[in-house]
């Protein structure tokens, strides 16, 4: 047996964590795409190991498992890397080695770990440490990949600027769409990193605290509903979604933004957060709500009497609606700050909603892919022809003449209002609206009152969060800047 295969589970996990840290040291502009391609395998291996690790506590699981959410995000990223950008190509060896280590660790746990029960404090500490290591590996790996992708995109932008100045042929210059795709992918890795940070903060991986893990508070109904919603959205969008699904997604995301604004104001009035910050945060959330609503309305134009919403999505949406109503509304409208504070822990509720806004960035990216590439998109001829013409005229104002003289639907199709395939300008209109959503969500996340790593901190506890990397706020600023899509 090779020496590398004699390692224990602990050694494999420690090595994986170290390899993930190495990704931050070895970043070069060319590594980003290769890392993005390999990421799906890392997440899949991590999720499979997570599933076979014994529970760290004898108590039953108290809510949705973050790893399920991360697995769904990882699968979405995998589909995008294979089908959209960067497409097939070399994969990063560091990340593949991490995936291999985690798979090997799973084999060992499956073979020898069946009789391990968390009955003693030592066993519980070991299991908790293993879980912390796995999550920390994902956290650092996602950060490293996001950094590499930002560098890749920045490098391409520099080259494009130089090539343009030198008047090199357009064909030999970097492609703007590739730059945008790399930036969008980086943004999705930053979302992944932020979500993983929610676990890493209360479960830090340091020698002094491994085994001394703080308990995670039981998730609220709202937190559970939001997590289940996010997972369901990704599942629905991974198939062939109906326009009605996109309408529901937009409407629920808009409601989440509204609820976040209402709870933010309540937290401001109850001095749970800096009152000066309240107005700024609420304004970004309002902008996000408007952007999601506009997108939902546009998707609504593509529905027909035969459109059907995915039943699982309808159920998840119903639970989000019910949970938000129970948290922040009364029979006469939104609840007052006092009423909300009497029902829920404001800081925790705000954190749940804020994390949901983080997840919304990724949902918007996936929705954008659907708008840009889903070949089966159709819509009623009258509205589609009108939209396509409107977008073509906007394009013309920007100097694009490719759509001049094109008729978008025949007179028969218009008369019968038949369902017709979505023409390119109408598709572009959907993509532009989704870019607005991405940009507004990015701003809402960047302005957010709570960093995920502050999870479960007591009221006005002061002091720094348990673990925070200096680059984090910078990362979010970059995300905000990069998410600003084309403007109308």
């Amino acid at each position, binding site marked *: 047996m090779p020496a590398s295969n004699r390692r224990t589970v602990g050694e494999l996990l420690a090595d994986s964590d170290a390899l993930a840290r190495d990704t931050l040291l070895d970043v070069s502009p060319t590594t980003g795409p290769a890392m993005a391609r390999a990421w799906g395998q890392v997440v899949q291996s991590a999720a499979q190991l997570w599933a076979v690790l014994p529970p760290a506590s004898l108590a039953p699981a108290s809510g949705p498992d973050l790893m399920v959410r991360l697995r769904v995000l990882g699968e979405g990223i995998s589909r995008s890397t294979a089908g959209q950008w960067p497409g097939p190509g070399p994969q990063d060896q560091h990340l593949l080695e991490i995936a291999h280590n985690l798979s090997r660790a799973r084999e060992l746990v499956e073979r020898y770990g069946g009789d391990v029960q968390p009955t003693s404090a030592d066993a519980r500490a070991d299991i908790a440490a293993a879980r912390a290591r796995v999550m920390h590996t994902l956290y650092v790996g996602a950060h490293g990949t996001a950094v590499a992708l930002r560098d890749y995109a920045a490098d391409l932008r520099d080259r494009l600027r130089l090539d343009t100045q030198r008047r090199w042929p357009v064909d030999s210059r970097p492609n703007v769409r590739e730059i945008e795709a790399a930036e969008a992918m980086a943004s999705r890795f930053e979302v992944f990193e932020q979500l993983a940070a929610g676990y890493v903060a209360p479960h830090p991986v340091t020698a002094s605290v491994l085994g001394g893990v703080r308990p995670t508070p039981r998730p609220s109904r709202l937190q559970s509903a939001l997590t289940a919603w996010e997972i369901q959205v990704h599942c629905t969008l991974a198939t062939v979604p109906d326009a009605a699904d996109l309408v*529901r997604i937009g*409407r*629920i995301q*808009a*409601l989440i*933004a*509204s609820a976040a*604004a*209402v709870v933010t104001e309540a937290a401001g009035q109850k001095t749970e957060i800096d009152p000066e910050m309240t107005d700024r945060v609420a304004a970004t*959330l*309002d*902008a996000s*709500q*408007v952007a999601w*609503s506009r997108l939902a*309305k546009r998707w609504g134009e593509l529905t027909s*009497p*035969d459109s*059907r*919403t995915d*039943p699982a999505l*309808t159920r998840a*949406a*119903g639970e989000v*609606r019910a949970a*938000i*109503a129970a948290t922040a*509304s*009364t*029979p*006469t*409208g*939104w609840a007052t700050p006092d009423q909300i504070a009497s029902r829920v822990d404001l800081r925790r509720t705000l954190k749940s909603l804020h994390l949901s806004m983080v997840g919304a960035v990724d949902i918007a990216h996936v929705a954008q892919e659907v708008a840009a590439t889903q070949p089966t998109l159709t819509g009623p001829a009258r509205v589609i022809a009108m939209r396509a013409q409107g977008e073509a005229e906007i394009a013309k104002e920007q100097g694009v003449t490719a759509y001049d003289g094109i008729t978008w639907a025949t007179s028969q199709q218009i008369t019968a209002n038949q369902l017709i395939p979505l023409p390119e300008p109408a598709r572009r209109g959907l993509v532009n609206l989704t870019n607005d959503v991405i940009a507004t969500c990015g701003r809402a996340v960047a302005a957010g009152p709570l960093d995920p790593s502050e999870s479960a901190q007591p009221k006005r506890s002061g002091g720094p969060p348990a673990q925070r990397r200096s680059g984090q706020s910078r990362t979010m600023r970059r995300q905000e800047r990069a998410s600003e899509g084309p403007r109308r």
Partner: protein
Amino acid sequence: MEQMDTEVVETVAGVARLLRRAAQLAWTQADVAGPRSSHQLLALGIDSAADEASSLLPRRAQLDGPTPVGDNPAELLASAEQLLRRICVVGAPARLLSLRVMVAELVWEANTGAGK
């Protein structure tokens, strides 16, 4: 799913049309009221009820038809509830009974402050 006779299918299709129209109007109210409108909660509730009504119908059932008259979501919801009351007899499918409960709650919601 339990088999429904033609009259029940047509009635449920009518309910679905009423609910879809009510949802459309509720969303217009929500959008006009601005980003923090609590009307969103009612509108989403009506959307869910409309989905449930549609899912009760056989795939071949025709949902397109005349647009229900009226511009008040609460009145359209009340009409839907009245239609459901007619077919929610003893022995009716459980999902139909659940839909009636759901619509009755929405009628109440629409007639209190949140939906007004």
